[in-house]
C-alpha cells in the first residue's frame, strides 16, 4: 500500500507526518500532511496544491536547524505518468516539480549540512538525484 512518513525536528519539539489519504472521494489517493508540536495534532490538509490525479508515497525531512520541513511525493496531476513534486513549510502551499521527462516514482529525501537531497527511480530503471531548489 503506502508507508506513512514522519519527521522530527532535531530538538524533538516539532513533528511532521504525511500519508496517502482517500477522504476526498474514497477513490483517488491524495497526500495529506500535518505539522505539530510533539504529538498534539490539531489539523491536517493536502500537501499538494492540486488534487487532480493521484498523489502518493510521500517522504519528509526537517532541515538541520529545524526551521523547515520538506516534503516530496509522487504526483500524477498532469494525467500522464507520475512525476516527483516537493514543497517545504516556508513555501505556503506552493509546489515545485522536481523530476524530469521520465516517469518517476518512490521519492526519498534527506537533509544534512546545506544539502537537501532528493532521489527517485525512473521508468528507464535509473536512480536520479536532484538538490531541492533553494
Amino acid at each position, binding site marked *: 500500500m503506502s508507508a506513512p512518513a514522519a519527521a522530527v525536528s532535531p530538538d524533538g519539539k516539532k513533528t511532521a507526518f504525511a500519508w496517502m489519504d482517500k477522504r476526498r472521494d474514497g477513490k483517488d489517493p491524495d497526500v495529506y500532511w500535518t505539522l505539530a508540536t510533539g504529538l498534539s495534532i490539531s489539523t491536517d490538509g493536502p500537501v499538494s496544491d492540486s488534487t487532480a490525479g493521484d498523489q502518493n508515497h510521500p517522504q519528509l525531512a526537517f532541515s538541520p536547524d529545524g526551521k523547515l520541513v520538506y516534503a516530496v511525493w509522487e504526483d500524477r496531476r498532469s494525467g500522464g505518468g507520475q512525476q516527483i513534486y516537493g514543497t517545504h513549510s516556508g513555501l505556503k502551499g506552493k509546489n515545485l516539480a522536481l523530476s524530469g521527462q521520465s516517469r518517476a516514482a518512490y521519492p526519498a529525501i*534527506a537533509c544534512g549540512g546545506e544539502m537537501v537531497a532528493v532521489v527517485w527511480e525512473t521508468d528507464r530503471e535509473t536512480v536520479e538525484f536532484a538538490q531541492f531548489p533553494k
Partner: protein
Amino acid sequence: MKWTAFAAILCLAQDPPALVVVADDAKQPQVAVDADGGIYVTFLRGGNIQVSVSTDGGKTFSKPVTAIDSRGNARGGMQRGPRIGVDAQKNVYVSAPVCFDDAELKQQYPKAELWLAISRDGGKTFGDKVRINEVEKKAPEALHWLAVTSTGEVHVAWIDGRTGKPAVFYKVFTEAGAKPGKDLRLAEPVCECCAPFVAIDKGGNPLVAFREGGQKPSREIFAMRSTNKGKSFQAPVQVNRAASKLPT
C-alpha cells in the same frame, strides 16, 4: 514598481533542478546525508543491495558498491527496497529484506529476513551482514524503516507476524551498530503491506508511524514516541484528523 513585479515573476518561475543519474539499472532508492553534505544512496541493482556516494554536492556519484551481496536474489516492488543512514563518523548503515535460504528461494514468494550491513569507511566497503529480526521466517516481506543517530545508534521498525497478526516490531543497535538490542513489539494489528516509518531527533529519541490493520472501513495513521531512546514507547496517537477511507 515594474522592476518589483518583474523580480516577483522571476522568483516564482522555477528552474527545474539539475538532475544527476546516480545509477543505471537501479530502483527503489533511499538517501542519507551527513553533516558535511555528503550524499549516500542505496538501491536495488541486479538483485543486490548497492550504495553510491557523492562527496561533491551531488555533481557526481561513485561507482556502486555492494552493501549486501544477495546473490542476485534481492527483490523490491512498492516500498520494499533497502534503507540507509549515516552517523557523524560517516559510518554507513544499510538494511534490506533478503532471502538467503535456497529452499525458500524456490517458492514463488520466498520469505525474506531483515539484514543490516555497516561500512566503516564512508561507503567504500561493507562488513558482513547481521540479521535484524530475531525470529526467522516471520517477517516475510520485512517491510521496514531505519533511522540512525549522529552517535551511531541504529533504530529499525518492521512488520513481523510472529504473534499471528501483523505487528510493528522495533530494535535498537548501539555501539555504532555492533550491539543489537532485543526485539520489541510496539503495535498490532497493523497494515500488513504498509512499511512503518522511523524518525529520530538529535537526542536519539525515536518516533514511529504506522497504518493500523484489522477489518475496518478506514485504516488510520498512528504514531508512537519514545523518550528513552527506544527502550519503551508511549501509547499510540492517531495522526489523521478525518477518516482516511483506506479500507482493509
